[in-house]
């Protein structure tokens, strides 16, 4: 075979067996119209083969259609499950909110009656303030950190994630800012509307900065409640902030802060109840379970 494989494939579209059979017939001298019985048998065979071919096509078509249909069904069922589950979650969260409010008002009513109770209430208010359990509003400082803009020659698909790209805000940068703000006397801090509690963590996972395991995205706005003047003057004085500012300058990152008259910070995520203890010992006191998996 002199021709290449591709030539053979392109030239020999008809099965050579047909030509071979025709030649054989001619050589044997059989008439091109074979005997009647023989012809009948051949026709039946051909018809049967065509039935098989049709069956194959129909079954394959049906199968493919059913497969996509089934996938759609499963998808719809999953979406339904998700919606149902998030509806349940919403209901539970609303009920939790309601019960919490009920507990708070009952507690307030009971404690407000006595002076000891009043004292405890004041303590509680302070603790709640410190635990970021209540939303706060007031003047403060708004620090903005943002990634450097991607330069024009940078590949937007593959080139953004490499280590040489220094113009990205990292968890450490946010930690420096937050710590400096605490040190400068901030009373409450939130990042992109996510309030920082005493147990909040600022971490880095892949490309995203996580605050309390919830991702926050560029640009990062750190709001701090406090006296804007002292806050800003003390904030600049922190040496880490100066270092961060120079880093931001050299990497073309955005790093600025402004004094704001009105900042409102939401409450942090409700703290989990981990340990509960009955105050008055008694035989029927039910021991509260610690939160499972807390």
């Amino acid at each position, binding site marked *: 075979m002199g021709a290449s494989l591709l030539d053979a494939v392109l030239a020999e579209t*008809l*099965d050579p067996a047909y030509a071979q059979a025709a030649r054989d017939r001619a050589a044997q001298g059989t008439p091109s119209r074979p005997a009647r019985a023989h012809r009948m048998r051949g026709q039946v065979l051909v018809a049967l083969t065509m039935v098989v071919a049709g069956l194959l096509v129909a079954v394959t078509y049906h199968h493919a259609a059913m497969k996509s249909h089934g996938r759609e069904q499963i998808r719809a069922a999953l979406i339904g499950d998700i919606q149902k589950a998030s509806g349940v979650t919403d209901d539970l969260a609303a009920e939790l909110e309601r019960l919490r409010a009920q507990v708070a008002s009952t507690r307030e009513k009971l404690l407000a009656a006595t002076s000891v109770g009043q004292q405890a209430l004041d303590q509680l208010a302070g603790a709640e303030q410190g635990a970021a359990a209540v939303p706060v509003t007031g003047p403060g400082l708004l620090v903005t950190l943002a990634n450097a803009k991607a330069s024009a020659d940078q590949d937007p698909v593959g080139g953004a994630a490499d280590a040489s790209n220094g113009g990205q805000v990292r968890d450490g940068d946010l930690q420096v800012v937050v710590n400096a703000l605490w040190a400068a006397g901030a009373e409450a801090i939130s990042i992109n509307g996510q309030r920082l509690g005493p147990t909040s963590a600022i971490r880095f996972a892949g490309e995203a900065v996580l605050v309390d395991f919830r991702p926050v995205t560029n640009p990062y706005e750190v709001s701090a409640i406090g006296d804007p003047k002292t806050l800003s003057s003390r904030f600049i004085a922190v040496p880490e902030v100066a270092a961060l500012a120079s880093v931001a300058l050299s990497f073309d990152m955005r790093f600025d802060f402004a004094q704001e008259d009105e900042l409102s910070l939401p409450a942090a995520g409700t703290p989990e109840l981990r340990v509960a203890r009955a105050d008055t010992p008694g035989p029927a006191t039910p021991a509260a379970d610690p939160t499972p998996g807390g």
Partner: protein
Amino acid sequence: MIPIIGLAAGVLLGLFFDPTVPLWLQPYLPIAVVAALDAVFGGFRARLDGIFDARVFVISFVSNVVVAALIVFLGDQLGVGAQLSTAVVVVLGIRIFGNAAAIRRHVFRA
């Protein structure tokens, strides 16, 4: 005429009875269909060429389907199933195109 009736009957049978295909056979159905199409087009062209032979047609049909499925099966076992089925589809596709062109020449004289 009879082959076309047979084909239609097969399609109707398949659509009405919807036979269940064993799971291990399902990946080879599409490739088997392409192989069957190749055999059918080849047979049609041979008929127009005046050299049709029932024996050759049946044998080429069966062997086409079986070999195509076998190649894909082998490829699956070797981890190159997708590539091999692509190769089978390309080769059979070229043949189907060639035969369809020949049929067109016969039918429309163009």
